[in-house]
């Protein structure tokens, strides 16, 4: 029941925030912070109360930390089934945390239609939580689509100059590919129906199906394309730079921090466990796509002059590591993929907040108009340097752990591809440091009168720095949570082989 409330509180809070606008322009922000804090408390409670060893998954008799299951559409055996294990717990915590950051960072940026803005923000977050918690494939699809609409509105209403184009592109890419996933889900369900004579969309029931290899490959591709579009991986990535660049700061934070992770989560939770054989035969092409994403993203990032666009391309590069890690499919690589999901969530969100702060101050995202900002905004600059270094994979911070583990793991799976993937680690410092160089050092071209980070922004950045350092120094606390889940998924796949 707690799981239901986690989602429902946000939906309710969204309605309340919309209505609360009548009580003053700051009211929706406070309401959103309040409901997110409530969610964070619930998550913290679950985290502290959980026994990581119980967090098994996959097998029919899986014992989840929490489970909530009621009948929904009985005609098709569809249940409203939510469940939480260590992996979902980590991602839920990330979502709620970044949600609070998103509310805090748009405190002064959003001045129009504040209530409706927070409504959309909270509904997006609710959809994302649903995706991370749903264990019924229909329900999963339902939330998968539900999170897109408010995100579309966030970009289309509060975005920048080219927002309409970007928002429609975002919607079309995700929606069309998700219809392929719907067809694949139904195909899978129908195979089970032919075998057993009953309908079920339940994850547990759909594991361990005997599938015809050819059909299995097609069905897997349906899921794969939907998830890789969301991830995004080359060649389905073209929506991302536009969406990121045009979205308001909070939108970029949510998009980079958690929405992309739903794609990674889908690959990890559904694609490989549901279609182990097909995934294995598809591993090399998938890893190759990952490596291409890493290098292509890095290359494109280097060529950008728009700060947000640059960060967007680095996201593509980092997400490539996740794709490689998941399809390498061993414990190291999987742990690495999960850590990268978490660490990239924090670091990219922070970089988008910084880019947003620069835009709020300078009314441009063009790096050619910046330069020599360090003396003017020392605090902002120092924090930007910290997160750039985090993003390039400095040991001691979260991203390093993730990417390092992915590379160790994938080395066992495919040496050649790993060599190319590790080139990404060389490219990362180049594009990360070039930003710092161009924006904060270099010669000052125009004189600005900028204000530095204030108390609100320092507080929220402080939280993110703490999270980043925690991941880098004591990753074990998180690995412990995800380990049993991954081990179990691993066994499930190996058992089939």
């Amino acid at each position, binding site marked *: 029941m707690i799981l239901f409330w986690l989602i429902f509180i946000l939906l309710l809070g969204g309605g309340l925030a919309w209505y609360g606008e009548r009580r003053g322009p700051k009211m929706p922000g406070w309401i959103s912070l309040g409901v997110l804090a409530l969610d964070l408390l619930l998550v913290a409670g679950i985290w502290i109360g959980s026994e990581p060893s119980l967090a098994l998954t996959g097998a029919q008799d899986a014992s989840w930390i929490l489970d909530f299951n009621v009948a929904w*559409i009985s005609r098709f055996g569809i249940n409203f089934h939510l469940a939480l294990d260590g992996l979902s717990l980590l991602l839920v915590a990330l979502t709620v945390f970044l949600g609070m950051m998103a509310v805090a960072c748009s405190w002064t940026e959003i001045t129009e239609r504040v209530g409706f803005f927070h409504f959309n923000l909270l509904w997006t977050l609710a959809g994302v939580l649903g995706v991370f918690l749903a264990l019924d494939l229909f329900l999963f699809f339902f939330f998968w689509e539900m999170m897109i609409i408010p995100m579309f509105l966030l970009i289309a209403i509060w975005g920048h100059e080219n927002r309409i184009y970007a928002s429609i592109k975002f919607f079309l890419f995700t929606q*069309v590919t998700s219809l392929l996933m719907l067809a694949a889900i*139904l195909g899978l369900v*129908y195979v089970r129906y032919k075998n057993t004579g009953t309908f079920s969309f339940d994850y547990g029931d759909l594991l361990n199906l005997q599938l015809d290899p050819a059909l299995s490959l097609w069905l897997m591709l349906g899921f794969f394309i939907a998830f890789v579009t969301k991830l995004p991986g080359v060649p389905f990535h073209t929506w991302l730079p536009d969406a990121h660049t045009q979205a308001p700061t909070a939108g970029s934070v949510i998009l980079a921090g958690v929405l992309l992770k739903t794609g990674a989560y889908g690959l990890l939770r559904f694609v490989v466990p549901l279609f182990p054989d097909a995934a294995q035969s598809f591993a090399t092409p998938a890893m190759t796509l990952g490596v291409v994403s890493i290098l292509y993203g890095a290359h494109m990032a280097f060529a950008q002059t728009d700060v947000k666009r640059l960060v967007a391309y680095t996201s593509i590069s980092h997400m490539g590591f996740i794709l490689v890690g998941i399809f390498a499919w061993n414990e190291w690589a999987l742990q690495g993929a999960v850590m990268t999901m978490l660490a990239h969530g924090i670091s990219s969100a922070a970089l988008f907040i910084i880019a947003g702060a620069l835009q709020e101050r300078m009314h441009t995202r063009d790096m050619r108009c910046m330069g020599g900002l360090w003396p003017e905004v020392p605090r902002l600059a120092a924090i930007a340097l910290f997160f750039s270094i985090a993003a390039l994979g400095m040991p001691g911070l979260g991203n390093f752990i993730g990417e390092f583990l992915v590379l160790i793991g994938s080395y066992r799976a495919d040496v050649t591809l790993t060599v190319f993937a590790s080139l990404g680690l060389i490219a990362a410092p180049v594009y990360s440091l070039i930003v710092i160089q161009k924006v904060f050092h270099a010669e000052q071209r125009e004189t600005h009168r900028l204000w530095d980070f204030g108390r609100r922004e320092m507080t929220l950045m402080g939280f993110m720095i703490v999270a980043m350092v925690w991941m880098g120094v004591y990753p074990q606390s998180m690995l412990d949570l995800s380990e049993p889940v991954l081990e179990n998924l691993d066994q499930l796949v190996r058992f089939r082989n």
Partner: protein
Amino acid sequence: MTFDGLLALLPIILSATAAIVVMLGIAVCRSHSRTVNLTLYGLIATLITLPLVGGVIPIQVTPLIIMDSFSVFFIAMITATGIVVTLLCKGYFGERDSENEELYLLLLTAVLGAVVLVSSRHFAALFLGLETMSVSLFAMIAYTVRNEFSLEAGVKYLILSAISSSFLLFGSALVYAEFGSLVFSDMLSLATTSGWTPLTAVGLSMVVVGLAFKLSLVPFHLWTSDVYQGAPAPVTAFVATVSKGAVFALLLRYFASADLFQHYPVYAVISLLAMASILVGNFLALQQNDLKRLLAYSSIAHMGYLLIPFVAGISLGKEVVIESLSFYLVAYFITTLGAFGMISVMTSGEKEMTDIADYRGLFWKKPGSAVLMTAIFLSLAGIPLTAGFIGKFYIFYAGVQASLWPLIFVLVIGSGIGLYYYLRVIVAMLEEPGPLKYAEEPLGAFLALAGLGVLVIILGVYPSPLSDLIYQIARTFGV
């Protein structure tokens, strides 16, 4: 005729009586509001006496008519739609001078025709119902005669409809020549004994072509956009829902009773019609700036989606076909009625609000109407949380079960294109407001539309009651 038989005919008797009473009422004293009230009473009486009919079904009354749960279900949909359209007309025509009372008389006869159509089991009843409906529609479409578009639309519909009827007649004559019976279900037993001949194939194709005209399937769709655009908005709502829905229900009954799904040539023709309708409808809708024309082309695409379960019938039982089509039709009725309803309540004065640009900034000027319209358009696009999504889920479900991968692929492409033009409308509402002033919506019509909006969401979130009901109807069909 037995008492049960009379009871079963109650919907037909009541709607016919209502038409007569309204006609006499107009003759005695012209009053717009009284006519509206009489019409509403008639339709409501038809609707609330349906449970009485439910007590005696399934029952065959005369060789022409059958009342079973399937027909009762569609009669309920038709009369409910009739009520909403009456409310829309009240708001739309209330402010216009000239004499508008006869419109309601035509509306009632059209409803009567549709009711006969969905409960017919015989070609004679089919033809009677179809013509009663169509003849009323000619006049309804051309009702605002001073508007040249309206008149043109009426004439266009009259001519094309007459041609399609003649196709239908000739086709049924050929089928009769072969089987010696006009009863749908007789074809089943006769066909298995005598087999299919070229004559049957030609006859059947002509029947399908005749009905495809009414359903505006590609390549028989040319009248659609002009008629939709020219007719007054509430009448368009009626044409788009009742006239198409009733014909679809009839086609479904004909195919299910005669078990034509298994007939390969029919399968091939319908697959082609489906693909062409989905692609052509969506592509043409892409280029429209007029909301009514956009919806016209999108309705062609929706009719194409609806044919997918028909095609799936070749390998699935008729239950699945009836089930998925019925649900999709419910969702289609609600959303289409809502969309044209919104156009008609937003209109005040002589010029209708049909340009997409007219809706710019609606979200900030009239948030209530805009949210309602957003819900309706998202449902048309088949986005979750709305009835349209569950409908599309049914279509996917039938298509995947029958492994119709090419059609599923076309469906995905079509939905993608569809999404783009539905989003254009939503995005226009989100833009900065233009100088246009909006009139107050008429209360009754607006409440009815709000009810439809709520229904869209309820069916999208909790479809179980309806899906269970439809499952029962499909399972008991023809038993």
